[in-house]
């Protein structure tokens, strides 16, 4: 492991972008900008931005609270308020934060919503979450966008038509009312053109892991790479510039034959290439990552980085069909894919990126990912004869992160991969 981490330009750009959005949000009351709460999967930020409104993503607040060690207090606050220990900790973290004054993870007050845009894609709990928020913010209108599940493994014209109707009859009229502005399709198309460019860049960025060594870690660093597109910048020119810069940096790494950057420097020897299924743990993110990079394990693909949109299978937003395109984007998010599609997608990643092993990080809070994961694992093991591993943690509840259990399991998994390599040799 090389020592010292020089911040790359893209890191600085991202930090500035997020800080700027945070500042805009904290000043929303003064500037009169309307605030829309919505979710990352199926985030139709282009539409929000076309009305000059600002998006807030409660699950991003929750995960950042987790990373900054604030989530436990919020979760306990929500539990005191009647929430069960058994339910999603993102919800409880968000509710707890709101009950404690809605001070965001960066110390700035998160403005209350003017609109709750319940675009629920691939996660039923999102719906329950906004039912709760609707009661906590009485009088705030709810615009519901129901995304049909790809149960048959494809999108039908009826599914798209249903979503477009919802956009036209439910979502857009409510946005017009809240923002006081008319729907401007040209403006939406402009944002979608930016999204389309960004989607191309994202594919190229994550395809770079085909190289040996992989220039990036597609899970632990990957969550930073998907930050801008999932956190307010989908459809913006800033996102286009950020991803162009990031791609350039990665190409330089490829040319120099460099491995991924970690919090402790570059990985000098890539020993294991893994595909990971499931979200990461946020409360012990650094320790969790360290367990991998200390062993020279690099994640070459992960399902979690596709949670805000899957572009691997050819989907790109089409600015010429703006509403249809938003609908299809929502339906194409990872957790809106059926299990067969997930198996195929993961299987392609394992093959395409020459992974040595497949690992599931099963999250207590997230049934959308977790239910069926053991079967996905079984299918991949049978289909590809690849070593599989399984660990458990939670999103933002530190009470469910057991460092030694995870370490033990990972060590066994890496030993298995090592032995397998020797056998193959």
């Amino acid at each position, binding site marked *: 492991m090389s020592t010292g981490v020089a911040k790359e330009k893209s890191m600085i750009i991202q930090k500035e972008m997020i800080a700027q959005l945070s500042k805009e949000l904290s000043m929303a009351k003064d500037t009169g900008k309307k605030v829309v709460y919505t979710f990352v999967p199926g985030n139709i930020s282009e539409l929000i931005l076309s009305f000059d409104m600002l998006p807030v993503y409660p699950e991003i607040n929750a995960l950042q609270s987790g990373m900054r060690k604030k989530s436990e207090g919020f979760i306990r606050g929500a539990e005191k308020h009647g929430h069960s220990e058994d339910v999603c900790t993102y919800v409880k973290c968000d509710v707890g934060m709101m009950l404690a004054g809605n001070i965001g993870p960066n110390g700035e007050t998160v403005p209350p919503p003017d609109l709750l845009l319940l675009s629920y894609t691939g996660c039923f709990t999102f*719906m329950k979450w906004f039912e709760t928020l609707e009661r906590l913010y009485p009088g705030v209108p709810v615009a519901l966008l129901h995304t049909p599940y790809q149960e048959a493994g494809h999108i039908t014209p009826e599914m798209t038509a249903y979503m477009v109707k919802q956009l036209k009859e439910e979502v857009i009229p409510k946005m017009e009312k809240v923002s006081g502005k008319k729907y401007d399709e040209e403006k939406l198309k402009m944002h979608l053109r930016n999204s389309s460019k960004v989607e191309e860049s994202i594919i190229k960025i994550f395809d770079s892991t085909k190289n040996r060594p992989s220039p990036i870690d597609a899970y632990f660093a990957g969550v930073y790479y998907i930050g801008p597109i999932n956190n307010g910048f989908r459809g913006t020119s800033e996102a286009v510039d950020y991803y162009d810069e990031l791609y350039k940096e990665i190409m330089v790494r490829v040319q120099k034959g460099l491995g991924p950057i970690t919090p402790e420097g570059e990985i000098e020897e890539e020993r294991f290439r893994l595909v990971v299924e499931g979200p990461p743990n946020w409360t012990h993110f650094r320790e969790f990552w360290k367990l991998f990079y200390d062993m020279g394990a690099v994640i070459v693909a992960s399902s979690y980085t596709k949670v805000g949109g899957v572009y691997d299978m050819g989907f790109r937003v089409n600015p010429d069909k703006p509403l249809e395109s938003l609908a299809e984007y929502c339906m194409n998010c990872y957790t809106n894919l059926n299990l067969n599609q997930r198996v195929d997608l993961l299987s392609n990643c394992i093959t395409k990126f020459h992974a040595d092993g497949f690992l599931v990080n099963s999250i207590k809070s997230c049934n959308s990912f977790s239910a069926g994961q053991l079967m996905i694992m079984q299918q991949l093991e049978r289909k590809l004869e690849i070593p599989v591993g399984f660990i458990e943690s939670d999103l933002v509840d530190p009470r469910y992160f057991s460092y030694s259990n995870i370490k033990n399991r990972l060590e066994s998994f890496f030993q298995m991969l090592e032995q397998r390599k020797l056998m193959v040799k």
Partner: protein
Amino acid sequence: MDTPDVIIRKCEELAFDLNFTRAKEWKAQDASRVLVGNMPIYFPRELVHAANGLCVGILGGGDKKLIIKGDAYYQSYICHMPRSIVELVLDGHFEGFDGFIFPSICDVIRNLSGMFQLMGKGTFVKYLDYPQNFSASVSEDFYINELQYVLDQIYAINKVEVTAERLKNSIQLYNKNRSLITELYDIRQQFPWRLTAADVYHIVRAGYVIPVEEHNEILEAMIQHIQVDRGKPVDKIKVMVMGAFCEQPPVGLIKTIEMAGCYIIEDDFLLGARWVQGDIETTSGNPMHDLCMAYLEKSTFSSSVYDVNNPKENRLMELIKKRKVDGIIFAAPSFCDPALLDHPILQKACNDHHVRFISFLYSENTGQFKVIKEQVGTFSDSIKLWDEPVVINNL
């Protein structure tokens, strides 16, 4: 006519026959008949009936099935019912079933549909996406298309054409079924000692695994029996049990609540059978439209539905008022996100309207009820000794 005890015993056997013997016998009598398994909560069974099929409710193995293999498919923090369903699959209990329907109620049931697809069970597996937008102009076409998909799948198996007349006839049979179940609950509200809650549970659950015509006969006979007094009134409070709409509570739990000083007057155990409130219209000449409108306009409230314009806490309070219960028992399965995330909302409404409640978790195979009995007993005593009757105003 069979005596009440004979009917109840028969229903108990039917309700927990995990081999679905009666359904399979029914299918064997005609080559064009099909069996379609449906998960909770609601599916318009009329549709399958009209296509010469029988919908069979799949409610898990309860405490009747030892889980060995099913646990290998689910992490410990996922509810119990899907693992017992997988166990039933792996042990061949659904052999002879033609298709499976998974209503959109939560992520676990949704992903279970994918597991059935991966296991290659049935000729078709359908995750049925119910619209969450209750405006007909937005949702009718989509929902009808979802229903038509099911009909097309069955047609591909048995070539039975579903005419408007057939569907209308099926709707009328299920209208009668819903009306009889409502009558059973209404009588019980007034005379809860005439049938126990466990009896009612068995009678209604039997309807999940037999033809509706047979179930209607059972219900008619039972209603006739309880027109006259049987059993003795006991000094118990009247309660509603909420939260058990998917993973079913063990019957022992239902009995425990009643033994601990409560009459269960209202519940959501088998909510699918009572999902549509009132009759489905059959006068439009387009029964698919009628079925669709019944869902959009006559659905009950549930944790799996977000009816933005019709808050569930208000509907719960209306139900309390209608059933004149003394309190609510929130009994939800462990790890059930929909039910448990509703608790703070519903319990706040209870507090606001001075409705007494208690809350506990169970799993379909819970076997120890002592703690629950003490909790429910204390709840019952406290209401009997000190509480004023519930009066709900200003909803």
